[in-house]
């Protein structure tokens, strides 16, 4: 029975199907808001779905000299990991009494797998531009991981536990973490790290359409590219969920809290989209300097404040 439940959780709700649908809808929100900022009309809500279906019917090109299996397999690995992270996060929010799969450190680690899969896929494609993109993605990954971990640990320190259950209960008991000084600072840091994790401007350095022509994604086409796009959509969905869970009291779907839960999520998304649309792309060394400079300092201050009890 348990196994069947797990499968339903993972495949339908809150796992793959739910995550994919909401993730694609989120990309629509992103595109629509971006379009409005540009004074364009923007696509209809079903555009991301239409794109995915269209890509599934297209030709799949494996370039000469590519390592075929790795090249085709890596997007799927990313998809499996992203879906797993999403399932854990949602189960923690919807059913906090039952531990499911793992705690926050597990989710943090699993959320890096899509990026790593993307890098290995780029490397397997054998295209120098893709490899440059992959190398940049890796540099970006260890650049933002440090402040993100410290920001996350502020909450963990307060809850004295890595488990989502305790983190959510701590926030339910003593107020949302965002309300404290340390929480606000950590939240700001986490938002910028999320920007990099979802590879949105100004940190879409690994794809960099204008210089690397898609970078790590350059050789993907057809069905594998649909999966790559789906991965990015899912990441855009779950990273804000992770932030809301860690810093903003999580999600509750009871009574009027349904509304606030959705609003929290939309607020984080809109902040991210606004940052995306108001900043030009930075260079990789600037990005690393940004995360190991101001962001690191800010996150350390947040942690010190948390230790002092603010």
């Amino acid at each position, binding site marked *: 029975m348990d196994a069947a439940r797990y499968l339903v959780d993972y495949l339908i709700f809150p796992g793959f199907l739910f995550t994919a649908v909401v993730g694609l809808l989120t990309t629509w929100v992103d595109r629509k808001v971006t379009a409005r900022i540009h004074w364009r009309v923007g696509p209809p809500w079903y555009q991301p779905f239409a794109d995915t279906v269209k890509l*599934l019917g297209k030709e799949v090109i494996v370039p000469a000299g590519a390592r075929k299996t790795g090249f085709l397999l890596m997007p799927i690995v990313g998809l499996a990991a992203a879906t797993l992270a999403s399932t854990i996060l949602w189960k923690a929010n919807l059913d906090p009494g039952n531990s499911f799969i793992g705690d926050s450190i597990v989710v943090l680690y699993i959320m890096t797998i899509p990026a790593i899969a993307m890098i290995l896929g780029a490397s397997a494609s054998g295209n120098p531009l893709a490899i440059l993109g992959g190398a940049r993605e890796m540099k970006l990954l*260890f650049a933002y991981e440090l402040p993100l971990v410290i920001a996350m640990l502020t909450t963990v320190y307060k809850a004295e536990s890595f488990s989502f259950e305790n983190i959510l209960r701590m926030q339910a008991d003593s107020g949302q973490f965002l309300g404290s000084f340390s929480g606000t600072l950590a939240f700001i840091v986490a938002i910028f790290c999320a920007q990099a994790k979802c590879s949105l401007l100004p940190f879409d350095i690994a794809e960099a359409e204008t210089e690397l022509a898609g970078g790590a994604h350059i050789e993907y086409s057809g069905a594998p590219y649909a999966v790559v796009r789906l991965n990015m959509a899912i990441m855009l969905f779950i990273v804000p969920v992770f932030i809301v869970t860690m810093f903003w009291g999580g999600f509750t779907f009871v009574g009027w809290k349904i509304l606030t839960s959705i609003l929290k999520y939309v607020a984080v998304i809109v902040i991210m989209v606004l940052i995306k649309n108001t900043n030009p792309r930075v260079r990789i060394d600037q990005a690393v300097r940004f995360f190991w400079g101001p962001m690191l300092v800010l996150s350390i201050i947040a942690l010190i404040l948390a230790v002092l009890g603010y």
Partner: protein
Amino acid sequence: MNDLLYIIIVAAVAGIIPLLVPRKASIVAGVTSLIAAVWIFILSMQLFRAGEIAWSVPLFNLGGEIPFEFALRLTGFSSFVLLFISLFGVLIILYSLGYMKGKGQASIYYSYLMWTLAAAAGVVMADNLLILLVFWEILTAILFFLINMGGEGHEKAAAKTFTILGFTDATMLLGIILIWTTFGTISISELAANPIVPSSPVTITAFICLFIGAIAKAGGMPFHSWIPAIAKPTHASVIAFLPASLDKLLGIYLLGLLTLRIFAIEPGGALSMMMMIVGVCTIIFAVLMALVQHNLKKLLSFHAISQVGYMVLGVGSGIPVAIAGGLFHMVNHAIYKSGLFLGAGAVEKMTGTTELEDLGGLAKLMPVTFITMIITAFSISGVPPFNGFVSKWLVYQGMLEGKYMIFLIAAIFGSALTMASFIKVLHSIFLGRRPEKFDGVREVGFSMQLPMIFIAILCIGFGIFASYPLQNFILPVVSGAGAISTSGFEVVTESTNGFWSPVSATILMVVGLVVGIIIFAFGRIKKNLRYDDNPWIGGNILENEEMRIPGTHFYKTVTDELNPIVTGAFHDGEKGAFDLFNIFGRLGDLVVQFLRSMHDGILSTYLSWAVIGLGVLAFILMFRW
């Protein structure tokens, strides 16, 4: 005969046989060693089940009072370490059958391996610190000979190793003497019955002396520099056997013995802090140096150092969860790191090089090596659900319990950098584009594949079914093990409420892969697949060589331009600024220079020195009597 002594004798005698075999039939030497190693493995499995065994024979009475015994004792801790030592013995000898083919001195190589096995078994079974030290020294000596069998530059590397390990063995002797004179016994079980509280200067010194011996063997900073020095010239199988697995097991075994049994270390006290700081510095500095390496074996050797940090951090903290994590990491590290070195050896055997810049695109030609390397690389980087993740996760839980936030951050960040470094390795060797000269490379023979496959399976098995090794090997050793419970396949920590259920995670990941494949099937990928288009590089068509990007410069922007402090550390690290051997070497050089300047080759100078010496001697003697 007693079982414990039997193991040592079997290994030692099996080491003599290869010397009797004609040089040309070195394969016979290999096979006999393999049989002996398998036998030892079976014996140690039986001993592991049998529980605690002790055996001793009195040798002499020191000063008529203090008895000195040749005492062996197998406890739960030592029997599981012995189990893994003998397992690695089997795997490495099996691998060597293929690896040493066509290399000189193969027969004596097998002798050394067997004697190493005998000495290592002696170390873990010794119930007397002096006996332990004797076996420990034998290991150092054999390591010296094994390094000397290697390629270009081995003399210097071997000398360096012998100097560092010889020095730290001497500090161990000092520590043992201090304990002996203070407490009147050096029997481990007697000391364990009444653990020493390191409060007085003498006991603290004794602890630090023994600690230095332990971390120098394991490769912790600042006594790490022998491992990178021997990485390049020495045979890959030797590094996989000694610095990568056996020395880790033994070094951390001794550390565990010190912190858990002989001494009563106060968690959070000064000594515990010192050990944790050593651990964290080792993690971060070694991994930063690994990032800039261009040679595969050298890069792996820096990771072999970096990972020791997690073990020292965990065991040194004195928190049960972290101790369990540290000890589990010791086992896991021995597994994946020997696998990585065996993979490096396979690549070296087939391509003749381990320089990352020269390699590339071997995944298709060496699929087994590639898959095992990717699994071991993910294990060392702590990617769930492989084994490295579980042990690191336990260390993190312990750090949170002790509220050592800085150590926690450093440990997590260290694992991100490890990932970065292994992305570079996987790209440079197996993915990326293949230089045309390697088009004819083949996979290594089956006897070399088998140990690698077995190690990869262990990495997956110990990751997914982590509750089994934890329950059977680790938790019985750690006191206060109630902090971790393993219900079914789940691992739960009591104090921090950590939770990790690797089996369900893996099953769901596999389901996710199936979902992905179904999506591909929807896209009718088989029908739509098209090969052999040129990669798209802005419309240019480039030659293969022009498209090769070695991974060695992946992190150049980070290591060169950014953060002068860190960058300084990179370069000084490469030059050897953190290398105690070099620093003391320079001091020694000054002394030698001075002495040399006195040798001018003129007889009268020597004579006058002799006369002055005689005068001083006469003067002293006159005043004594």
